[in-house]
């Protein structure tokens, strides 16, 4: 059943399969957000966000530009401190146990950047050592093999295309075998073949390495093809969260996920 998931184009069929996989996994919230608020002077970027993401899920975090998705990821990856509220990642508080949190997460920022004058291997080696990996060389080649990206490790990052950089970005994020992978607009700027490859990588990481994926995106087509659960953020507040299967069942009259998104958005405005 899993082997063919990438080729399934029917939304409902796909969501049923993904949901079935979810049920087999532990119902354990690896991301637990309580009343998270972030203010920049008068601007409220996040407003009392409450959110739980279970182990093994591929969570699609949807929202328009400026909704607060990146702020949420920045806080959950301990890069940013919240103004109010708390969050636990794999049971560890993002404020008090930030190092423990970082040991358990991988992070791919939007428009991932590297030291351009260093090779891919040198970049990965540096990040591997920072992640505390004992034998970086072995791990780097293992990950590059997994991502089918061997042969490029001695090229300078400055010579890489956007899609290639994303692969190295994924490599640095999964080298230390994290429990959760945070992806911030991972398909941004990629060409269709790059998007397809990245989608396969995300699904394989979830299926084979059992990594929980938290994916920020505003591309509904990506959510439909990849995610098992979706959450919609609007003006810093979570206005919807459910499994993809339930969402499709709830909004039977809508033909596409775009319609559902607009429907939910309109409801929240009312």
């Amino acid at each position, binding site marked *: 059943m899993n082997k063919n998931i990438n080729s399934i184009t029917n939304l409902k069929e796909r969501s049923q399969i993904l949901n079935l996989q979810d049920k087999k996994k532990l119902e354990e919230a690896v991301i637990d957000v309580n009343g998270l608020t972030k203010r920049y002077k008068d601007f409220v970027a996040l407003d009392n966000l409450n959110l739980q993401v279970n182990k093994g899920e591929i969570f699609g975090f949807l929202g328009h530009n400026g909704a607060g998705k990146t702020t949420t990821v920045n806080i959950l990856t301990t890069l*940013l401190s919240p103004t109010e509220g708390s969050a636990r990642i794999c049971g560890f508080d993002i404020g008090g146990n930030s190092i423990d949190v970082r040991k358990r997460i991988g992070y791919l*920022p939007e428009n991932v950047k*590297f030291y351009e004058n*260093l090779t891919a291997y040198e970049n990965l080696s540096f990040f591997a050592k920072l992640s505390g990996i004992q034998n970086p060389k072995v791990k780097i080649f293992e990950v590059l093999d997994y991502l089918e990206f061997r042969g490029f490790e001695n090229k300078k990052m400055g010579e890489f295309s956007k899609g290639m950089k994303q692969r190295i970005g994924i490599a640095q994020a999964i080298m230390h075998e994290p429990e959760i992978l945070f992806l911030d607009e991972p398909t941004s700027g990629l060409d269709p073949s790059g998007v397809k490859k990245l989608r396969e990588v995300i699904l394989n990481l979830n299926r084979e390495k059992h990594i929980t994926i938290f994916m920020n995106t505003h591309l509904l087509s990506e959510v439909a093809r990849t995610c098992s659960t979706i959450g919609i953020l609007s003006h810093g507040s979570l206005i919807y969260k459910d499994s993809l299967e339930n969402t499709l069942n709830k909004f039977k009259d809508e033909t596409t996920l775009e319609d559902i998104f607009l429907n939910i958005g309109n409801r929240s405005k009312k």
Partner: protein
Amino acid sequence: MTGKINTIAGHEFKTLFKEKTFVLILIIFILMTLFSTYIGWSSRTTVENVYQETVKKLIADGAAKQPADPFIGIPVLSIIKNMIVYVFLIGSLLAIIIGYNSFLRERQSGVSKIIFSKPLERKDFVLGKIAGILYPLLIITAISFLISLASVSLITGKMLPSPSIFKLVAFYLVSLIYMLMFAMTGLFFSIYLKSESMALLIPVIIWIFISFVLPELTSALNPNALLNPTNIQSATPHGQFLLAIQGALKPFSVSETYKLISGNLLELDSASSSLSIMKIFMNNLGSFVFIIFLLGFSVFGCFYAMIKFNACEEEIYE
């Protein structure tokens, strides 16, 4: 040092090599060291030749008494006295660039988000950066020391005596501390300020103030002391007010402290050659402690700025 501090330091050093910054600065320092020895040797030889010619002429003219050799009692280390000027003018400026560049690299490349998402303490990151700045400065001063030692020994035709070697070591250690102080200032502002141009401009303004303005206020009436280290402090013909200002600022004029200590260590006059290293430091203890204090203050500033640093500064409203 922990593995992660070493990782940061090693990475820093490797990147310096890749960017050829280190190689360029090393070449500048080697040239400066060679030039200082050459200029010292050249001026000494010229004066010596003039003296010999004069003595010959006086003898030919039948003069009963000849003037004394001007270099009698002048220690040989003073040949490299120009190094003092090079370090406090050029070395400190290059150190600012090394320090400023150190964090700018992460800022410009945008990798700080990945770095700080790794299980790395920010204090370890700063310690790694400091070590990554210290290593190249240490290598540069060590090579400069070896060149000075070799060239002075070559010129004099014999190995320097041990006390002079120790003084030469002490001079390069003081120079290292002095340059490190500026490097840390550059690092601090590159972390603390968001504007790249301001992060470079402010340390350069500090450098100008320390290297030119403060000496103007404290030793302007003793012009030799501005560029050429000297121990001769002639009485100033000014009023008490200016004297009071000079007296008050003097201990804080770190470039003059550096020149004074370095001048004594390089035995610029016969009087300083008799001073031990300990005596030289004790004579300038207050001012030297102030240099150490400034170094400590700038290091503390780097830790403070790093704690405050926001790795997501470009996207706060997303």
